[in-house]
């Protein structure tokens, strides 16, 4: 009889403590949910400034650039290996990417400025290609050509970037650039819209002129 009373007392005590812990946990979750909701309601878009820090980290920096062969918009096969001996900026972009549109005029200027030193840009389009439907594929390609023309891109524009995205660390934000030195090693990477100065600094690194 006495043992039963002890057990019952323990059971009651456990239930009381569990109820208290459950109540505290529920209050904690409620407070967190309210905090997150408040953050979402207050969300505002802050436009980037030229000096805003970009995202830099890429585990590929310091490693050889994965080789690839893609077609350009005229149908010509272009291999990264054929650029050995030159500094290359691999610029992943898309026609629907608004920040890419801001960056491209800088790239065009920088390419002209540094071409005499052995610098080249390869634009790699991430626009979708309907490979199973020849008519749609032709339309997709025409749209990329049109997008490149609108931006006055003079350097090679390669298509089907999606097929090499994984090799370059699962590229999934645009613009993303990899800066490759004359030996074929990635010396810098940038993700998102950076500044022209930052792009130039990375080009200089690729050319072996970086500080």
């Amino acid at each position, binding site marked *: 009889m006495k043992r039963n009373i002890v057990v019952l007392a323990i059971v009651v005590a456990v239930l009381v403590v569990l109820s208290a812990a459950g109540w505290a946990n529920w209050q904690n979750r409620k407070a967190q949910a309210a905090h997150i909701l408040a953050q979402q309601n207050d969300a505002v878009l802050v436009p980037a400034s030229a000096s805003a820090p970009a995202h830099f980290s890429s585990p590929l920096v310091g490693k050889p650039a994965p080789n690839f062969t893609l077609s350009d918009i005229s149908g010509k096969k272009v291999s990264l290996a054929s650029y050995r001996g030159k500094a290359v900026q691999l610029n992943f972009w898309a026609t629907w990417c608004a920040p890419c549109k801001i960056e491209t005029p800088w790239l065009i200027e920088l390419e002209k400025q540094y071409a005499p030193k052995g610098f080249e840009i390869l634009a790699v389009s991430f626009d979708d290609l309907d490979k199973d439907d020849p008519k749609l594929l032709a339309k997709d390609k025409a749209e990329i050509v049109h*997008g490149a023309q609108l931006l006055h891109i003079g350097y090679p524009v390669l298509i089907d970037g999606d097929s090499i995205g994984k090799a370059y660390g699962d590229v999934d934000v645009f613009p993303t650039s990899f800066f490759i030195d004359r030996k074929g090693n990635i010396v810098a990477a940038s993700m998102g819209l950076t500044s022209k100065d930052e792009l130039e600094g990375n080009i200089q690194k690729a050319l072996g002129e970086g500080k």
Partner: protein
Amino acid sequence: MRLPAILVLAFATTLSLAQTPSTSLVPKSPSTKAPAVTYLFPEQVTIAAGKPTGVDLHFRIAPGLHINSHSPREAELIPTTLKFDDSAVTLKGATFPPGTDIAFAIDPSDKLSVYTGDFIIRAEMVATPGEHLVQATLHYQACDNSACMPPHTIPVVFDVIAR
């Protein structure tokens, strides 16, 4: 003696679980791995069968991101669109909210028409009598203030009871 020991063990385990911080509510940084847009509600609507009815579909865009409105200012930009793949419930039309104009500080003249935060699409639908699971989709393309993510499609699933 065994019963109190079990009770103490259960108590200690449950208490430690109760004190574990909730991870499901911790906000995550925007990433293309997680959809930029979430369908919020309704989960179920009741409408008159055979009669066009407007239903407000509520969506939420992750903090720090925006998506193009239904009417972006440039043809190259991908508009937000809603599609129904259901024969029993057909989409007769959709009213999208007007976009908000934003611009990058570096190029203030180049305006973008976008949605941020929560937004509502009014879907005009007609249903045959009965209960139907609508599996619609929302197609959008999201960016933050310096980078864009590939176009994405999310499911918009809700029940329609048409009487």
